[in-house]
Structures are given as C-alpha cells and as structure tokens.
C-alpha cells in the first residue's frame, strides 16, 4: 500500500485539493449551521420545540369609543365562535374565561410585604404552552391548598429590565419567582370569600394574561359568583398557517382585533424557516460544486496517472486495489471536512447561543443530534459517490481496446 501510494500520489495537486477542501468545508458548515441555527432559534419565536408546530393567535373585539358608550357587548357569542370554528384556516378555538370575582394577591418575604388587586383568566389546558403541575387537575375546589399560576414572560422581563433596574432591586430569575409563596383572597357575590395559597409555576410566551387552570376557574366561578354569566371576551385560535391572508381579512371583516405578537411570531417563524431553507440550499449548492471540483481533480489525477494505473493492472493489481488509494484520499478529505465543520459549528453555536440567551433567557437550546446526523448522512453520500466515480473512472481506463 505504501509503495502503491508512492506511485499513485504522483501528480496529486495540493492546490486543487486545498480548493476542494475549503469549498466543501464552507458548504458543509453553511448547511450544518443553518440547520442548527434554525433548530436553536425557532423555539424563541414559537415558544415551542419542534420544527413544524401549530401557531396560535388571540382574538378580541375592537374596543371603540362609541360601542363602549352604548354599552354594547365586547364579548363573543356562541354563534361568533361556531362561525369562527368553521373557517378553513382554523384548527381549534378556545375561549378565555375571566374570573367573575375579585382577586387580591399579596406576598411577604423577609419582612417586606406587598399586595395588589388583580384578575385571573383561564383557557383550555391544551392551549397553554406550559404544563400545569399534575396536582392542579385533581384538586377539588373545597380543598384547594395552592393555586398554580402562569404569568406572561413579558411581565418578568418588564420587572427585571424596567422596574428592578431603575429601583436598584434584585433581578429575579424564573426559578426564584417560582419559589415565592403568595397569599390569595377571592371575594365573590354576597360576601363569599376564599383564602388560598398561590404559586407561579411557569411563564408563558403565548398567553398574555394571568392564567389559572380551567378546572379551578370553573369551580371558583360557580362557587363565588353563581349568577354571573361568563361570556368570553377573548378567543385563542390555533391556525394552520399564520401567514394565511384569510386570517387577516376575516378579522377585519368581523371587526375583531388580533393580539399582534402572536401572528408576528408566526410570521417571523415562517420567514425564519424560509431564510434557513435558502441558506441551506446555498450551502448544498456549494457542497455540490465542491464535490464537482473534487471529481474533476481526481479524474485529472487518474488521467495523468493512467499509464501507471494500466501497468499496475497488467502486473496483476485488481481495480479495487488501485482505486483504493484515491478512494481513501477523498474519503479522508471528506471526513476531515466533516470533523472541522462540526468543530466550527460548535464554536459558532456557542457564540450565538450566548447572545440569544441575553435576549431570551429561558430559551432552551435545541438538540444537535439531528444536525450531526445530517452531517454524517451528507458525508456518507458524498463519499459513496466519490468512491463510485473513481471506481468507474478506473474501470474505463482498464477496458481492453
């Protein structure tokens, strides 16, 4: 093998191979990086892991000066909801249920106490982007000891970057907030009252409200305000495609309002997908071109060494054996490209993840397994095609005249 290589490395062009190496490295890196970036960043927009997940929009009726003066209902009727459910862009509709009683929440830690009037809302559990603790479902209204609460992530950001910053108060992480126990007082019709403990169990990017489990809401509304009707003022809609024009036109036609960010996030995700796809396509194109360079270079090499190869075949070397050094050369180059691309990928990823975490502290990094698998698959495919092409080229020069 050593002698064979000594013979066959004649005419190996370092310049051509270096050109291939860099081009292939660039292509591979772009492909892997676009995949990984997409994997890592999409959750920041959609609040979900996974590539193709459903998107949610929140609808309300427009609050206009005239209608509020007239005392017109800002709530959705049964027929509004059923009409919406039948639209082609809708997958599922959920209603926001508001608390029909007064809520007062207070907390006291280390001697500092503060409290505020507030409200609760609920939506069906499968619209919530955070899982309720298992205990929430089984609670009976009579024995509720602790209410799980989900706050909008923006509240925490507002506190940390707005309030705490200017007042020199400590910044709070999600974990710390979850540990603060709250006292909650509910006051309903005819002086009915309920005292409970509360605890923040999570922060939602999708729902901009103070959420409690729907079962809890149903029981407390029934107990504390049995006569009040709870017609929904807001709806949460799972749409098939957030970029669908039909959504915007339906909303306009009906005089509804879209809570902006939900659709924007969907759009951003969509654009991100397209951008990632374009970048990946460019990467694949560069990879394909670099593959072409390598093939040309190897073909030229085989052609220049044709006489040597022919002589080797005539003294009893098999085609497999004379093809092997060139096949190993290309596979070795491809493997080096893959390894360096992966190393660079981790390096660049580390860099952008740090920046993303400053923007989205709760962002969980995506898995790298898919990307590595794609890299490996690309390497295998390219190496296989290289090996096959070399074999065919050598067969073509060994064919008897």
């Amino acid at each position, binding site marked *: 093998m050593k002698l064979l290589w000594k*013979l066959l490395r004649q005419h190996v062009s370092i310049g051509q191979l270096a050109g291939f190496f860099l081009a292939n490295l660039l292509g591979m890196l772009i492909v892997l990086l676009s995949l990984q970036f997409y994997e890592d960043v999409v959750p920041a927009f959609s609040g979900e892991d996974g590539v193709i997940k459903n998107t949610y929009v929140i609808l309300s009726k427009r609050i206009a000066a005239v209608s509020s003066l007239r005392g017109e209902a800002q709530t959705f009727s049964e027929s509004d909801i059923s009409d919406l459910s039948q639209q082609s862009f809708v997958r599922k509709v959920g209603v926001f249920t508001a608390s029909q009683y007064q809520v007062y929440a207070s907390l006291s830690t280390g001697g500092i106490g503060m409290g505020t009037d507030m409200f609760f809302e609920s939506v069906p559990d499968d619209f919530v982007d955070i899982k309720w603790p298992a205990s929430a479902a089984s609670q009976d209204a009579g024995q509720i000891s602790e209410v799980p609460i989900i706050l909008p992530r923006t509240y925490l950001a507002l506190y940390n970057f707005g309030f705490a910053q200017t007042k020199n108060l400590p910044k709070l992480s999600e974990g710390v907030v979850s540990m603060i126990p709250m006292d909650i007082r509910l006051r309903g019709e005819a002086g009915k009252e309920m005292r409970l403990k509360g605890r923040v169990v999570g922060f939602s990017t999708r729902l901009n409200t103070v959420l409690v489990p729907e079962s809890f809401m149903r029981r407390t509304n029934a107990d504390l305000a049995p006569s009040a009707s709870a017609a929904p003022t807001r709806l949460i809609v799972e749409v098939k495609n957030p970029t669908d024009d039909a959504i915007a036109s339906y909303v306009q036609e009906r005089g509804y309002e879209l809570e902006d960010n939900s659709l924007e996030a969907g759009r951003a995700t969509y654009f991100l997908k397209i951008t990632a796809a374009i970048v990946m396509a460019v990467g694949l194109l560069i990879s394909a071109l670099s593959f072409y360079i390598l093939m040309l270079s190897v073909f030229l090499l085989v052609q220049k060494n044709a006489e040597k190869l022919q002589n080797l075949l*005539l003294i009893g070397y098999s085609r497999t054996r004379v093809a092997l050094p060139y096949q190993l050369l290309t596979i070795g180059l491809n493997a080096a490209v893959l390894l360096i691309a992966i190393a660079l990928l981790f390096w660049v990823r580390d860099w952008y993840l740090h920046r993303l975490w400053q923007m989205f502290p709760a962002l969980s990094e995506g898995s790298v397994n898919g990307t590595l698998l794609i890299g490996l698959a690309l390497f295998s495919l390219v190496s296989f095609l290289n090996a096959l092409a070399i074999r065919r080229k050598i067969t073509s020069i060994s064919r008897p*005249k």
Partner: protein
Amino acid sequence: MNQISLHNTLPLVFAQRPDNTSELWLQNVSFERGHLYLIEAASGTGKSSLCAYLTGYRRDYSGTITFDGRDIRDLHNFEWTGIRRRTLSLMFQELRLFPELTAWENVEIKNQLTRHKSEAELIAWFEALGIDEKRNTRLGLMSFGQQQRVALIRALCQPFDFLLADEPVSHLDQENSQVMGEVMMQEAQRQGAAVIITSIGHHMDLPYERVFKL
C-alpha cells in the same frame, strides 16, 4: 493453465494484406505448458499485438484465442486479474516499469502482491544479473539494458504456467543475455511452466523446442 491456442487469429489491421506467410496468424496453433517456444518476427508483423491479446489489454483481432479451450473474450475483469497474478507472466517489450520507484521497489510492488519470493531470493537474482549495486537507484536513472533485467525479475516473482517474454534481451550483450536466459529457464523449470520468447533477430541461445516465423 495447460494450453494457449490460436484459431484463425489475425490482427484486424492485417485483414487487408493478401499474402499471409505467417506460421501463427490464420493458423491453428497451440502452446503447451512445460515447453519452450521462440517466435521470430520482423518488426511490424504483430508480435507485440500478440502479447497484448494474450494479456487481455487489446481485443482487435479476428478469430479465436483460447486458454484451456475457453475463449478469452469471455473472461471477466476479475478473471484477468487472477490470470495476470497467478497464471501468465509477461515481460513487456516496453518494460512497463515505474521510473519514479527504485529498482528494488519496482520488484517489490509486484512481490507484495504475490508474496512469491523471499527477500533473499530476490537479492540473489539482482546479484546473478549484475545489478545488485543498482537496487536502490531510481529506475529512471538506469540504462535500458539494466531496466530489462529489473523487468525480468519482476516477471519472475509470481507463480505462472506461461512466461511470455517480448524481446527480453534487445539491449543486452551476449554474456548478459546468457545469464538472463539461465535465470529465466531455472525459474520456469522449477514451476514447470512454458516459456514463449519473441525476438526480431538477436535472441538468447536456448534449446527451443519449436520456432514460429511470424
């Protein structure tokens, strides 16, 4: 392999020639294992073509050539590889050595494949042929006569039933060609192989059993 036969074989380029006086072309001729043949030829009579047909790198002939009765046009690539490695050894007129490698490496590249000869046996041949001190010289720097001797050693370091030597001593003096003939015949007899030598005039002085005029 025991027999190489030619049936009505003729290089395609000779198809237009009216007068065929050849004792090989367009005849039924067989070469048997264990015998010694000489093919005498004027240049341009198809001597090298014959060698190319027998080693499977040219097929531009009419008629049939068989190895033990099997038409060699039907042989697969892998079968040719086996034949070149174990059955039929050829010392090419143009040598087909590798000028980038040393004399020793040129032999070694074949012997590594066949593992037929020990290092000592190879060195003994280098000594017998008088090129021992050139073992580590790059082949490109050696004279053609010296290269012919390297080519002979390379041709001998494999098992074979037939040894085909195409003008093996064209650039050697009488004394050196004598030594070469001895080395060649010794190994061929040891293996019980046939030797077919071609020549355009000057040839080794050996007890040929049959001489063909091409």
